[in-house]
C-alpha cells in the first residue's frame, strides 16, 4: 500500500484487511434494474411543461447559408420557438477543444449551430422547440433554407495538397497542426535516419485506418431543467464532470449554478466523451424559454453527427538486420480531423504516437503527424483512441518484415520484444513499461488456440489447393492505460489532469456510501468498487453502495475513458478507505480504552493485541460516533474521508491475441475459425467483468477488421447512415472467444490493476487482418484493406492490390452480415 497523505497518520501503517472479495466473480449489482426495465435513461425523463427540441441539419457538406426563413415553422401546431444560428450567435460561444497538441495548432472554432456556413452534412442550422417530439420534427419541414455550395474536401491526402480548396476560409491550409515526436538528437531525426542508412532491410507500408462510428446503443439524449438561474442537466454522457466545467465556460452559466447528471448511460466507447452541440443548445434554449428542454437523437442523427473515430492514413517504415533485429521505426500519419476540432480530436493521434514501437526494442524512432481538416463530421475518441491505430501498424509491419526476412512471424517477435527480466523498460518513445511477461502470455495463447494442429491443417489445405484456405495471425501488444498522470498529460498539452477522486461515508447503521468521480456506462463500477471497499473495510459486499455520475453528489471527478476507472478511480477508493480506517482507529482506541498502536485491524474489527475479547467492529464504531456521546477531543464525529489519486505512471496491460481465419478463395468470404487471447491486465478485481470487457472489445476490434466503415459519397453524404449500412456485427457474425489471463501486477497503483476496457479492441484488429493475409499470401496477397468485405478479399486474391478502396464497399458489405438486412425472425408485423 502507498502511504496515506494524512498529517494525522500514525507511524504504523494500516494493516490491509484480509482480501476476500477482490478476485471473485461477483454477479453485478447493476443488473437488477437493467434486466427489469427499471433503468433511468435520459430519454425516460419527463418533467412538467417539458418542451422538445429538434434540429434542422444541413444536407450540404460545404456551403454558405444564403437564405433561411423559419417563419412558417413558427406557425406550425405545437411549436413554441424556432431559432437560427444568427439568433444564438451572440451567446453560443465555441465548443471546446481541450488538446492543443502543438503551440501553433490552428483551431477555427466550432459553433454549436451554424451561423453563416456549414462545413459538414448534419451540422445544425435551425432549432425547433415544440410541445411534443413529433411536433418539433414535423415543423422542421416548414423551414426554408438555401445554400451556396462550396467545393467539398473529403480526402485527406488531397486536402493537404497545395491548391486544395479550404474547409475553413479563415485558415491558410487544411493542416491544423504538424506534430513531431523524435527519439533522436533534439528532434533532428538523425538517429532514425542513421538506423535506416545502416539497416540491411527496410520494409515500408501504407495502411489505412478506415473511419469508424462508435455506435453506442443508447442514442444521445439531454434534458435541461432551468430553475431561475440554476440549471440541472441530465445527459447520456461519459463525462458529467468535464461537461459541467466546459458547459459553464461555453455558456457563461456559473459552474456552481449548473448540476450535471449522467443517469444510466447506454454505452459510450469514447463516443460520449464529448461536449455536444446539442447539450450547449439545450442549455441556451432552456435559459431563453425558462422551460425544461429535451433532445433525443434518432439513430440516423447519431451516426451522422456524433463524432467518428480512427480515419488515418499511415506510412510506416521499419529497418532491420537480416537476422531479424529491428533497427528503427519511422511513422508518418495523416489524421482526418473532420471539419472541426472537438474535445480531444487532435490528441488522439498524438496519444497513439507513443504506442507505435509496441512491445519491441526499437533503438530509433521518429513520428510525424498532420491533423487535416475535411468536410466530414469530426473524429475524436473511439475505444482505444490512437492506440489501436498504432498497434495495427506495428503488428502488421512486423508480419511483413517476417515475410521479407523469411522468418516465422512469432520468431521475429520473440527476437525483438522486451523480455520478462528486462522490466521496468524505458521504450524508445520514452514510456516506462513496468511489468509483464510477453512470452508467458504468448505460450498460453498458443495452447488455447491449438496452434500446432491449425498450422498443420493450414499446410494440408495449401497442399491440396483447398478452395477454403486457413491463416493464422498474431497480435502481441501493449497499451498505455490509466490516463493520468496529470503532469504527463500536461507535458502532452492536454488541457486537463488525470487524477481521480473518491469519498467514503460510513453511515450510522454501519452501511457504507462510496462516491466515485469515475462515471460508468456499463463497466460495473458499483460491483467492483463494492468489492474493493468490502475488503478494505472488512464490511459485507452488500453493505456498500456506490454513487456516481451526479455533480451534486460526486463533486469532483474526471470521469470514465481510456481504461482509467479502476486504475485511477479504484485506487482513489482504496486511499479513501485507508483514511476511513485511520479515523475509525482513533475512535476505536478510545472506545476500547487502548492505545492506537496496540490495535490491529482485520476482517472489519479493531482488536487489542494480546487482550482476547477486546475488540469492536468498524460498523459499531460508525454508530458510536454518530451518537457522539463520548468521543475524544480533536476528533470530528464522523468517519468519512475523501482522497484523490494521481498515479506516477501509466499502466501497461499487454497480451497475445491469435486469430485463425478461413477464407473462401472462390467467394472472398472471410470467417474466423478460432480466436484465442491471453491478456495481462494486472490484478483482476472481478474476473466476470474483466472477461466481459475483453469480449466486448474483441467484438469492436473484429468489427473494424471485418465489417464496419463510415463511408461518404463524393458530395460528402454519409452513405452508411443507418444500421442497414453501418454494419455493427450481430451475434451470428462473431465467433466464440477463448480467453485467458496472466497476472503481473502494475507497479503504478496499490491495486496492481492495469485496465482492461480497450485491450480487446486494440489487439484484435491486427490479429484478424494478419490471419486473413496469412491465409492467402501464397496467392500473392500482401495487403488487404479493412473492412475485409468478400468482394475486397476476392479482388485482392484474383486481381492483386489490397482489394480496392471504399467506393464499392457498401454494396459488398451488405452481403457480409445478417445484421444489416431487415430481419424477419423477430421483426414481426409490418
Amino acid at each position, binding site marked *: 500500500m502507498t502511504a496515506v497523505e494524512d498529517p494525522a497518520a500514525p507511524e504504523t501503517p494500516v494493516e490491509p484487511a484480509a482480501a476476500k472479495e477482490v478476485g471473485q466473480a461477483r*454477479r453485478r*449489482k*447493476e*443488473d*437488477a*434494474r*437493467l*434486466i*427489469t*426495465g*427499471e*433503468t433511468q*435513461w435520459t*430519454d425516460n425523463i*419527463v418533467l412538467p411543461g417539458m418542451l422538445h427540441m429538434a434540429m434542422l441539419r444541413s444536407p450540404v457538406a460545404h456551403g454558405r447559408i444564403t437564405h433561411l426563413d423559419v417563419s412558417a415553422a413558427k406557425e406550425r401546431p405545437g411549436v413554441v420557438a424556432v431559432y437560427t444560428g444568427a439568433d444564438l450567435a451572440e451567446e453560443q460561444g465555441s465548443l471546446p477543444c481541450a488538446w492543443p497538441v502543438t503551440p501553433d495548432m490552428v483551431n477555427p472554432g466550432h459553433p454549436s449551430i451554424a451561423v453563416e456556413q456549414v462545413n459538414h452534412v448534419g451540422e445544425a442550422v435551425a432549432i425547433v422547440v415544440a410541445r411534443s*417530439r*413529433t411536433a418539433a420534427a414535423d415543423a422542421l419541414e416548414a423551414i426554408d433554407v438555401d445554400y451556396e455550395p462550396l467545393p467539398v474536401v473529403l480526402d485527406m491526402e488531397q486536402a493537404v495538397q497545395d491548391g486544395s480548396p479550404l474547409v475553413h476560409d479563415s485558415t491558410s491550409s487544411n493542416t491544423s497542426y504538424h506534430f513531431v515526436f523524435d527519439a533522436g538528437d533534439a528532434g533532428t531525426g538523425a538517429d532514425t535516419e542513421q538506423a535506416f542508412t545502416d539497416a540491411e532491410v527496410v520494409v515500408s507500408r501504407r495502411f489505412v485506418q478506415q473511419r469508424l462510428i462508435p*455506435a*453506442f*446503443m*443508447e*442514442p444521445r439524449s439531454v434534458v435541461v431543467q432551468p430553475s431561475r438561474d440554476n440549471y440541472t442537466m441530465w445527459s447520456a454522457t461519459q463525462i458529467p464532470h468535464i461537461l459541467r466545467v466546459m458547459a459553464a465556460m461555453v455558456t457563461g452559466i456559473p459552474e456552481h449554478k449548473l448540476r450535471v447528471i449522467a443517469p*444510466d448511460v*447506454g*454505452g459510450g*466507447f469514447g463516443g460520449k466523451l464529448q461536449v455536444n452541440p446539442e447539450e450547449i443548445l439545450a442549455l441556451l434554449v432552456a435559459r431563453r424559454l425558462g422551460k425544461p428542454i429535451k433532445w433525443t437523437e*434518432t*439513430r*440516423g442523427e447519431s451516426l451522422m453527427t456524433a463524432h467518428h473515430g480512427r480515419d488515418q492514413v499511415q506510412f510506416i517504415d521499419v529497418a532491420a538486420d537480416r537476422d531479424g533485429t529491428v533497427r528503427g521505426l519511422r511513422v508518418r500519419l495523416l489524421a482526418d480531423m473532420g471539419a472541426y476540432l472537438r474535445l480531444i480530436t487532435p490528441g488522439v493521434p498524438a496519444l497513439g504516437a507513443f504506442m507505435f514501437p509496441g512491445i519491441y526494442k526499437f533503438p530509433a524512432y521518429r513520428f510525424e503527424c498532420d491533423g487535416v481538416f475535411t468536410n466530414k463530421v469530426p473524429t475524436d475518441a473511439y475505444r482505444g483512441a490512437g492506440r489501436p491505430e498504432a498497434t495495427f501498424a506495428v503488428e502488421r509491419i512486423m508480419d511483413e518484415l517476417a515475410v521479407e526476412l523469411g522468418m516465422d512471424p512469432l520468431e521475429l517477435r520473440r527476437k525483438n520484444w522486451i523480455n520478462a527480466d528486462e522490466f521496468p523498460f524505458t521504450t524508445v518513445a520514452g514510456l516506462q513499461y513496468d511489468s509483464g511477461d510477453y512470452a508467458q502470455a504468448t505460450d498460453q495463447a498458443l495452447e488455447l488456440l491449438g496452434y500446432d494442429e491449425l498450422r498443420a491443417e493450414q499446410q494440408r489445405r495449401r497442399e491440396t489447393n483447398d478452395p477454403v484456405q486457413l491463416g493464422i495471425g498474431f497480435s502481441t501488444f501493449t497499451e498505455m492505460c490509466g490516463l493520468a498522470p496529470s503532469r504527463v498529460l500536461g507535458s502532452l498539452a492536454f488541457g486537463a489532469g488525470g487524477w481521480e477522486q473518491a469519498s467514503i461515508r460510513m453511515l450510522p447503521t454501519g452501511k457504507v456510501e462510496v462516491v466515485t468521480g469515475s462515471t460508468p*456506462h*456499463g463497466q460495473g463500477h458499483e460491483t467492483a468498487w463494492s468489492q474493493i471497499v468490502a475488503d478494505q473495510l472488512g464490511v459485507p459486499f*452488500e453493505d456498500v453502495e456506490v454513487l456516481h455520475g451526479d455533480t451534486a453528489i460526486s463533486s469532483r471527478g474526471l470521469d470514465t475513458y481510456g481504461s482509467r476507472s479502476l486504475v485511477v478511480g479504484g485506487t482513489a477508493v482504496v486511499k479513501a478507505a485507508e483514511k476511513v480506517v485511520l479515523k475509525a482507529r482513533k475512535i476505536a482506541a478510545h472506545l476500547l480504552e487502548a492505545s492506537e498502536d496496540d490495535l490491529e485491524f482485520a476482517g472489519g474489527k479493531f482488536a487489542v493485541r494480546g487482550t482476547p475479547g477486546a475488540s469492536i467492529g468498524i460498523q459499531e464504531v460508525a454508530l458510536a460516533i454518530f451518537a457522539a456521546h463520548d468521543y475524544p477531543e480533536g476528533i470530528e464525529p464522523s468517519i468519512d474521508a475523501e482522497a484523490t489519486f494521481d498515479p506516477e505512471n501509466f499502466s501497461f496491460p499487454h497480451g497475445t491475441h491469435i486469430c485463425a481465419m478461413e477464407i473462401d478463395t472462390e467467394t472472398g468470404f472471410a470467417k474466423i475459425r478460432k480466436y484465442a487471447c491471453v491478456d495481462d491486465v494486472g490484478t483482476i478485481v472481478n*474476473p*466476470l467483468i474483466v*472477461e*466481459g470487457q475483453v*469480449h*466486448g472489445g474483441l*467484438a*469492436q476490434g473484429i468489427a473494424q477488421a471485418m465489417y464496419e466503415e463510415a463511408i461518404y459519397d463524393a458530395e460528402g453524404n454519409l452513405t452508411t447512415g*443507418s*444500421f*442497414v449500412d453501418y454494419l*455493427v456485427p*450481430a*451475434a*451470428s*457474425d*462473431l465467433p*466464440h*472467444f477463448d480467453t485467458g489471463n496472466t497476472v503481473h501486477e502494475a507497479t503504478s497503483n496499490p491495486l496492481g490493476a492495469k485496465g482492461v476496457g480497450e485491450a480487446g479492441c486494440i489487439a484484435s484488429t491486427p490479429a484478424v487482418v494478419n490471419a486473413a493475409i496469412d491465409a492467402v499470401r501464397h496467392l500473392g496477397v500482401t495487403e488487404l484493406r479493412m473492412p475485409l468485405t468478400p468482394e475486397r478479399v476476392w479482388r485482392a486474391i484474383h486481381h492483386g492490390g489490397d482489394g480496392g478502396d471504399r467506393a464499392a464497399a457498401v454494396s459488398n458489405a451488405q452481403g457480409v452480415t*445478417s*445484421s444489416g438486412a*431487415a*430481419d424477419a*425472425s*423477430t*421483426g*414481426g*408485423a409490418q
Partner: protein
Amino acid sequence: MTQINVRVDGASYSDDVEPRTLLVHYLREQLGKVGTVVGCDTSNCGACTVHLDGQAVKSCSVFAVQADGSQVTTIEGIAGDGVGGALHPVQRAFHEMHGLQCGFCTPGMIMASIDLLKENPDPTETEVREGIEGNLCRCTGYQNIVKAVRHAAAEMRGQAPGDPEASPAVVDTAAAEHVVAQS
C-alpha cells in the same frame, strides 16, 4: 386520432392514438412503459422488442393501432407479480452469466430470447446466435448472452444448467438486489 384497446403487462388500456404512432412510442410516452427503449429508426437493433400476442416483435415496426385488441408484454411484465417478484429464468440467466454491460439492449434481448426458447427449447450455440441476430449489442460481444440463453434453456427444460464455462467462485446477489431496487 383512433381509439385502441390493449392489454399491456396484464392491465387494460383504452387510448386515443394518432394513426402514425408506433407501438414503442405509445408504450413509452402514453403508458410510461419506459423499460422498452428505442435504439434505431430502421428496425435493425431490436432494442424495442416486446411480445405481441405472445410473439416477439420490434415495437418500432408496429403501429399502435395494429396492437388494438392485442396483448402486449414488455420487459416490465415478465417477472412475477408484485414488488420484487420472481425474475423470469431468462432475466436471471442474463444476470448469472453476465450477459449485459450497459444494459440498453438488454430488455429487447431478453424478450427476443424468451421467444426463441419458446420455438426451440434446446438451441445450440449457433442456433442462439442466429436466433438473436435481429438484436444488436455493442458491449458484450454476445458470448455471455449466448451462454445466458442456453443456461436459461436448460433451467426451463428442468435440467440443471451445467455450464462447463461457468466461472467458479460464483456469489449471487440477484434476488436480494432485486428486492432492494424495487422497495
